[in-house]
């Protein structure tokens, strides 16, 4: 027999009520009646929401009982995840019910780190007064907004706010370089929208260190594609090779794990290219018709340029490649043969953090393999993402204050000089705040980011924070960064607020997700998007004029109208209904399911997403918008940028230097990765590799016990961080599994539990980014910065081990 | 030889028979319990044969024990009565 808790109380309440009546005590009977209402079967409603634990953007169904969230599952209609979820999603419940959440706004009381609760009115007026004051003094550019990991209209809103208010400093602080699209794709194909990988339709996948099945873009979407690759039913089992210094769970699932010296992925890619060319396994038709710079060529001025083919054959002999990468020649040949003979094959070169010192050319080298096998623009290859037909925003009418502020360069230097091509340069940011170059920062707004814990330059950030007189945090938690704030205006957690999501890594369709609040807010928190609108209104001027919406909900409703009016796409619905519509559409009929926009809006709110599974521009022309209208092995777009930079005085030279210097000649524009000289081990003989766990949500998830308790399965770990050491290496320093070890780099040292893991190169140790107890690898990472894109290099640090 | 006893004879005898009664109750209880277990196993069709099999050994053993106890009580106490 089934007795649910509530059912039981209901029964008990009924019995108590009866007993009270028999006794004739009216008051007690009323009390019992009250109990009965309290314990009555609650109203159960499923509300769609969007998981915000990672950039995957999976659709959720939140089970609510009288408005109280009591369970999560995947939204079965949502095209990204089709009802499935990853482990992180379930941590969302614990995030929502975290007992240490901030209960309302807080203001600094005395020194930093001490707080007193305040009301929303006071909090908002304090912030508005401060911002208005700076703006009035012509210092609007000295307000910096640091954003984190989120997408969609919250990003748009902040950007608009910054532009209307008059600060160029809306800076995204994230580990993953915030590129839209990947720079290598932009330079070689000229595309300006993100490309996506059609993993599920590929027959062979070669991945250079991308944690496909762990923390790469959207884990659920990729896992589903992986399952299709392996067992689609209609085709033979697809194969998949993982190049990675570590036998990650992805490598475990791969048919072949290719351990590689960290940072040499580009060299291996060129070695494979060499083998493909030498054995004539490349797609000759594609190369001939759709690429530029493969063979030697002569430019307009009559200068002879060496083509990709001869360059690779000359420079990347297999023996040299094998020596540099540690991958046997035989393996390189086998991979090349597999890659050249299996169609469609797909090469992935978007490892989350940077590959190493020459990251851009490494990515270009890897991407050139996709061109060699002709995997661009077809099924199982690289596809382009369609744009969502959302209603455009009205133009911002900037007043003088805003215009004046925007004339200033960005504090992090992005978009100028050496960071000419970077959209954000967070690694350089703290030093520039500290040095007040080119100007001091007077106010810092932190939204969805915690650089004091999660950024490799966290010490520099801590110092920089000390220099800023006014820091505002919108974090719902008192984390490292928000505890240094002067004012905290806590945001809702994602199950409590209106929000949207626009994911750009989807193969074959475009998707817009909408979430209304699934749970009644537990505390006195407010959706930061609403707060931004409120502040803008209070500030008035061009800020108020540009952000006229009362609530974020209104803003969203206005934007989404574009989807309704686009004349394509669907609000997601049951599979049967959907396939019927698609059959109709193929025959040329598209009809709207809804009579009015209100109906459309309501349906979107109860089903959770809109998508357009058809109408993708997959023609090769659309994919090749370079100057030559072809795939360019020789990136003439980059050449043009460099030429322009050289013509410009002052800042241009820094950019060219950062890229590698003009004396490299054509090598700057070719996917050329220099083979490094053999380095003596020196004082720090081991390399440090940090990686992202499947179980790590955005922000680290320290308030999500389920995830902290079972963070990984390849090692037995729980609650505290660890370092993975090859048994041989461990034996050399006399360390056994479970011992404490010191890991020491030039920057500092941390103590961690050792886990012996044979799945690694012996001279590489691996530390996960883990939100639980124990030291963070960020304390070790030497703050090497990618010289022209401004993000930290996470995997170039050298370390040594000591038994603790 | 005079009997050196401080307690009234009837009370002593009552206590002694009470001990015997206790033994009957205890072992009787165990037997009833075993039968209860068979009944439960039968009702739930939870391998009643096992219960019956075990009880076929267990019940006689307990009854024999009870027999010995009663034999001693009756034998010793009864003899004094006849003195």
């Amino acid at each position, binding site marked *: 027999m089934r007795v649910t808790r509530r059912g039981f109380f209901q029964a008990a309440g009924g019995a108590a009520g009866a007993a009270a009546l028999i006794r004739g005590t009216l008051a007690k009977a009323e009390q019992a009646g009250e109990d009965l209402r309290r314990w009555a079967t609650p109203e159960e409603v499923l509300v769609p929401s969007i998981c915000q634990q990672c950039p995957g953007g999976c659709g959720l169904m939140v089970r609510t009982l009288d408005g109280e969230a009591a369970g999560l599952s995947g939204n079965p209609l949502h095209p990204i995840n089709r009802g499935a979820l990853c482990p992180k999603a379930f941590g969302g419940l614990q995030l929502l019910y975290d007992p240490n959440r901030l209960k309302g706004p807080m203001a600094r009381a005395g020194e930093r780190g001490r707080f007193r609760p305040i009301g929303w009115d006071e909090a908002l007026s304090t912030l508005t007064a401060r911002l208005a004051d700076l703006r009035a003094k012509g210092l609007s550019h000295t307000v910096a907004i640091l954003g984190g990991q989120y997408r969609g209209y919250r990003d748009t809103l902040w950007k608009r706010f910054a532009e209307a208010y008059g600060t160029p400093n809306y800076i995204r602080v994230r580990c993953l370089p915030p590129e839209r699209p990947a720079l290598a794709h932009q330079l070689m194909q000229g595309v300006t929208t993100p490309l996506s990988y059609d993993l599920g339709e590929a027959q062979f996948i070669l991945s250079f260190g991308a944690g496909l099945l762990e923390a790469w873009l959207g884990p659920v979407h990729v896992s589903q594609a992986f399952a299709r690759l392996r067992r689609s039913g209609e085709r033979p089992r697809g194969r998949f090779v993982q190049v990675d210094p570590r036998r990650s769970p992805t490598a475990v699932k791969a048919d072949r794990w290719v351990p590689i010296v960290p940072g040499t992925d580009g060299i291996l890619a060129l070695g494979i290219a060499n083998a493909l060319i030498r054995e004539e396994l490349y797609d000759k038709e594609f190369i001939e018709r759709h690429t530029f710079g493969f063979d030697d060529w002569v430019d307009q001025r009559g200068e002879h340029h060496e083509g990709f083919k001869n360059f690779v054959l000359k420079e990347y002999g297999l023996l040299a490649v094998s020596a540099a990468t540690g991958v046997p020649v035989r393996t390189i040949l086998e991979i090349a043969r597999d890659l050249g003979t299996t169609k469609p094959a797909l090469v992935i070169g978007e490892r989350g953090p940077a590959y190493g010192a020459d990251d851009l050319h490494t990515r270009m080298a890897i991407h050139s393999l996709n061109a060699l096998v002709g995997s661009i623009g077809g099924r199982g290859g690289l596809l382009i993402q369609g744009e969502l037909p959302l209603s455009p925003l009205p133009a911002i009418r900037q007043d003088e204050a805003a215009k004046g502020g925007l004339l200033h360069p960005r504090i992090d230097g992005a978009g100028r000089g050496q960071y000419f091509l970077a959209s954000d340069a967070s690694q350089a940011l703290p030093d520039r705040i500290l040095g007040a170059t080119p100007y001091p920062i007077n106010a810092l707004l932190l939204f969805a980011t915690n650089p004091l814990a999660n950024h490799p330059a966290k010490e520099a950030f801590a110092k920089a924070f000390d220099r800023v007189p006014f820091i505002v945090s919108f974090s719902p938690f008192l984390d490292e960064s928000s505890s240094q704030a002067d004012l905290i205006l806590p945001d809702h957690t994602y199950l409590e607020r209106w929000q949207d999501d626009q994911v750009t890594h989807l193969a074959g369709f475009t998707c817009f997700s909408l979430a209304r609040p699934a749970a009644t807010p537990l505390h006195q928190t407010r959706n930061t998007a609403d707060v931004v609108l409120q502040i803008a209104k209070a500030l008035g001027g061009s800020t108020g004029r540009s952000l006229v919406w009362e609530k974020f909900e209104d803003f969203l409703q206005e934007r989404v109208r574009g989807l309704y009016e686009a004349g394509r796409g669907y609000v997601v619905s049951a599979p049967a209904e959907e396939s019927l519509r698609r059959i109709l559409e193929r025959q040329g009929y598209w009809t709207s399911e809804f009579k009015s926009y209100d109906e459309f809006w309501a349906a979107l709110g109860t089903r959770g997403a809109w998508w357009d599974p058809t109408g993708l521009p997959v023609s090769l022309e659309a994919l090749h918008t370079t100057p030559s209208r072809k795939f360019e092995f020789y990136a003439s777009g980059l050449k043009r940028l460099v030429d322009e930079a050289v013509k410009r005085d002052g800042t241009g030279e820094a950019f060219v230097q950062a890229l590698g210097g003009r004396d490299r000649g054509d090598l700057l524009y070719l996917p050329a990765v220099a083979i490094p000289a053999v380095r003596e081990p020196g004082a720090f003989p081991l390399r440090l590799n940090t990686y992202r766990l499947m179980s790590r949500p955005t922000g680290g998830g320290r308030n999500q016990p389920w995830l902290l308790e079972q963070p990984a399965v390849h090692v*037995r770990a729980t609650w505290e961080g660890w370092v993975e050491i090859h048994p041989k290496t461990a034996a050399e320093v006399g360390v056994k599994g479970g011992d404490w070890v010191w890991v020491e780099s030039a920057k500092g040292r941390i103590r961690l539990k050792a886990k012996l893991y044979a799945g690694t190169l012996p001279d590489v140790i691996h530390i996960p980014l883990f939100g639980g107890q124990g030291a963070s690898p960020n304390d070790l990472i030497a703050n090497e910065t990618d010289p022209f894109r401004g993000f930290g290099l996470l995997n170039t640090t050298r370390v040594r081990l000591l038994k603790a | 030889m005079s009997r*050196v*006893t*401080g*307690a009234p004879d009837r009370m*002593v005898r009552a*206590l*002694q028979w009470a*001990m015997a009664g206790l033994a009957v109750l*205890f*072992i009787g209880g*165990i037997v009833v*319990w*075993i039968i209860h*277990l*068979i009944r*439960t*196993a039968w009702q739930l069709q*939870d*391998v009643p044969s*096992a*219960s019956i099999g*075990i*009880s076929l050994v*267990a019940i006689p*053993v*307990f009854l*024999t*024990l009870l027999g*010995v*106890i009663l*034999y*001693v*009580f009756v*034998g*010793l*106490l009864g*003899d*004094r009565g006849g*003195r």
Partner: protein
Amino acid sequence: MADPADTRDAALLFPIELTGRGFYVTVGLLSLLILWGAIAYWTQFDEGLGVTGLHQPVSWGFYVTNFVFFIGISHAGTLISAILRLSKAEWRRPITRMAEVITVMVLFIGAGQILIDLGRPDRMMNIIRYGRYQSPLLWDATSISAYLTASIVYLYIPMIPDIAILRDRVGKRKLLYTVLALGWQGTEHQQKVLNRAIAIMAVLVIPIAVSVHSVVSFVFSMTLQPMWRSTIFGPYFVVGAIFSGIAALIVAMLVFRKAYGLHGYLKPIHFRYLGQLLLVMSLLWFYFTFAEYLTAYYGNEPEEMHVFWAKFSGPFWPFFWGMVLTNFVIPVLCLVRLGRRTIGKVLIASLSVTVGMWLERFIIVVPTLSNPRLPFGEGIYFPTWVEWGELAGSFALFALFFVLFTKLFPVISIWEIREGREVGLKEVEERLLTYLPDTAEPRLAEPERGW
């Protein structure tokens, strides 16, 4: 029958009549240990079994080890005394009572271990209300309650004449002794009833005792777990039980011999005989152990071998080799020649076996659990202060029960000693004669027809 005025065995009544400082000190010390155990149990009851060192997968540890160990010790007793009685070994007379007391006391403690081990002791009655005979635990419950009943009866019946002596001789606790003596006057009928009852019990108690320890072993061998699923576990456990029982009995005898000055009753010869019995059991135990491990090793089944190597050279090697040392090497070395210093050697051997048999139970229970069939982490088990406390408390409680018993009843059967003097000598002589060839008319036995 014995004359109550007979004062020869007055020494046996001293502990009951007089109480010295030593008694209070002992009781005090034991009470402290019991207090530790009680605090430990209260902590566990209040907070949960989490206060122990148990975990996933080692879900059984000290308590189950203690359960098997104590139930094993209980064989000391009744089984030995019954066998000696049935075989009419005359040297049994000063030993039987102590053996029987150990059995009863230790059975309570042993059964108690299972209750300590329960996660929900408040639901203990579920075993009675909803018990099911498919579970070996219920076999245990039945078998142990039968054994407990039988042991109490078997302790009580031969004590009746002694209680009568106490009733007549000791000034204290008159009512208790009068009631318990069941009006014993030593009449012929009474003696006949008594002797018959003792004889029946001695026969009855042996199969029950064997069943108890077989059933205890079935708790393990009925599962599918590596190194538990073994057909010889029943006899192996019974042998181990008798082995540890004898050892515990010897230790108890030596303690009371010293404490109550019973040198006159417990002579080296008794220890020599018991020592020889212990030696035989040690060899038998070794034989079983050898057979058990050889089959596992020879079969070389991967899951069994995990457990096997965990015991041989893995984390449990100190326990395993400690067990071999204390159960086999030390006792054999001590007991193989019992010429001089019999008592010392027997004492060392017995203490060694007591420790060794506890280790044996531990090495059976824990390594199997800590090496599961599926690839989990190996679970290493470290007991906490709670488990140590309950172990100490259990031993202390047993000792206290025993000491208190000796304050109420004679620890050596007075009437049996007297009977030995008065009847035994003659009887043995007569019996001995019947063993011998008839010297008067030596003649060959006629071959029976058809043989």
